[in-house]
């Protein structure tokens, strides 16, 4: 995979299919590169949690977690049938809030 770089924004010109006003300044490029990097960091963190709550707690470590009992639930079973789903919902809303903030910070938000 390393041979295909997840690349940064090299050009900010709406040429082909989009009617975006272009501001082709060099510091724009740097800024967009930083925006994309921050976006990828957010994605990485959130997807890590996504993986841990479902595949981790619900499947790979379910037996270990099942030795913990919370109320009438074994913890691993709870993550597999309830907890993972609640976590997914929270993850998306955290993403929404973080991205909206990031968009404003880099001035790429929509009017």
């Amino acid at each position, binding site marked *: 995979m390393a041979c295909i770089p997840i690349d940064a924004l090299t050009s900010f010109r709406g040429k082909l*299919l989009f009617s975006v006003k272009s501001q082709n300044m060099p510091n724009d490029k740097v800024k967009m590169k930083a925006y994309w990097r921050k976006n990828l960091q957010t994605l990485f963190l959130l997807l890590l949690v996504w993986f841990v709550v479902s*595949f981790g707690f619900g499947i790979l470590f379910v037996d270990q977690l099942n030795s913990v009992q919370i109320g009438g639930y074994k913890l691993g079973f709870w993550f597999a049938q309830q907890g993972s789903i609640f976590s997914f919902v929270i*993850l*998306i809303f955290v993403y*929404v809030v973080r*991205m909206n903030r990031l968009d404003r910070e880099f001035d790429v938000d929509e009017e």
Partner: protein
Amino acid sequence: MEILTWTYILIGISFALYIGIAIWTRAGSTQEFYIAGGGVSPLANGMATAADWMSAASFISMAGIISFAGYDGSVYLMGWTGGYVLLALLLAPYLRKFGKFTVPDFVGDRYYSNTAKVVAVICALFISFTYVAGQMRGVGIVFSRYLEVPIEWGVVIGMCIVFFYAVLGGMKGITYTQVAQYCVLIFAYMVPAIFISMQLTGNPIPQLGLGGSVADGTHLLDKLDGVLTELGFAAYTSGRKSMTDMFMITLALMVGTAGLPHVIVRFFTVPRVKDARLSAGYALVFIAILYTTAPAIAAFGIYNTIEGTSEKNISELPSWISTWQKTNLIAVNDKNGDGKVQYVADPAANELTIDRDIMVLASPEIAQLPNWVVGLVAAGAMAAALSTAAGLLLVISTSVSRDLFKTFRPTISEKKELRIARISAAGAVLLAGYFGVNPPGFVAQVVAFAFGLAAASFFPVIIMGIFSSRINKEGAISGMITGLLFTISYIIYFKFISPDANSAENWWFGVSPEGIGSLGMMLNFIVCVLVSKFTPAPPQAVQDMVQEIRIPRGAGKAQDH
């Protein structure tokens, strides 16, 4: 009033509502027909997505599957919700920024190739047809069970309704009827669940009731584990599937969900990129309400069934069991002639056969709720089947009119395109109805197909199309074809050619046909990257486009060529 009267009244009212909405929101342009004019609010779109997504299978069968699979049923719960995280984070905002109408649109433009587009159209059609046949069948079954009409008539009535609002209203009509359908189906699902939870555990919230205690003070799940092991079954909270298989099936369902064209297209209907993100969040909230309730209904259902029947006199069984015996969904056969019911794991001694669908369908009677609740559940099941069928039919008609017809005849007028879209929607309804009446024997098996194929074909090329500008058309086409062929052959081999060999010792790496889409997806990724590495980079214009879809500003309205 009789159950049948209530069912007619409630289904009648809900149908009148859907038709009324369809007339009110009739589509006038191709843009309205394909993506509802791009003006749907994120909340409404979230609700519509939830209704679109939750099919007759989710509504009627899922809880029952979990009843009998216990912990193993978690693959569906996690798989069919976790995909929305991928959708929200990796696909929806970027595809909305791209701003056209369909998934093949994106594949065709991003990979600057009509070949890639046609491969994508074929995948989309195949996935949608497999899925829609099952929905029409679901409509027929609900009709025949609740309204006591033959399945064929049920399918025909369902076809007329779907025909009316999908063909007339297009995406715009479908969206607003789906909002109504979501309200009907979630209400119908929750009412019996809340009452059963209250009766069994004293807690009105089913999600908490599942972790609560039954009358004698023991925890419901512990009690269930004990009862089931005593009868020779596996414990409810422990798994029978291998860990590898659990992992792979969950992954295939998640990735497949994120790659389903009728789900993705819903995110083209909102006005802005930030709405696409938010809308995915709302959709998952609405889905999660049902999906976290289902495991509770599952455990309550199997518990009630065992408590009500095991070692009980046949003459003293609860009344819902005798009611549902008429429909053959539950059957008692006193093999040893002792006048009691033995429900045990050993098939030779077992005297009780239960269809999984009964866990939801009989839930109002198990909870001894009034007759109108039974009618409500029927209307809810109809809403679930119709909303999914309509969404799929739209994908089919769009694929034909726009992705096939317009690609090769770009000069076609908008009016004519709209007519072709309507005609192909009508054709798709008829074909789906035909399969509903004469279900091919493989309907149950092909569900694995739809998800496996979506996972192995669309997901990798869309992701790579957004997150790498170096992937070219050669990579995408060969990746899609490899993933597709691999997944299809594996499923066909184990499901149709030699079903006898379909057991863990013959599977590759212990992965069942249900989970093979995960391997297909990985193959697709690998081939895609390798082939792209040895072939020329995409043209500059395409690379610029990739940069463009990564920033939200300037999404504007979806546009035509």
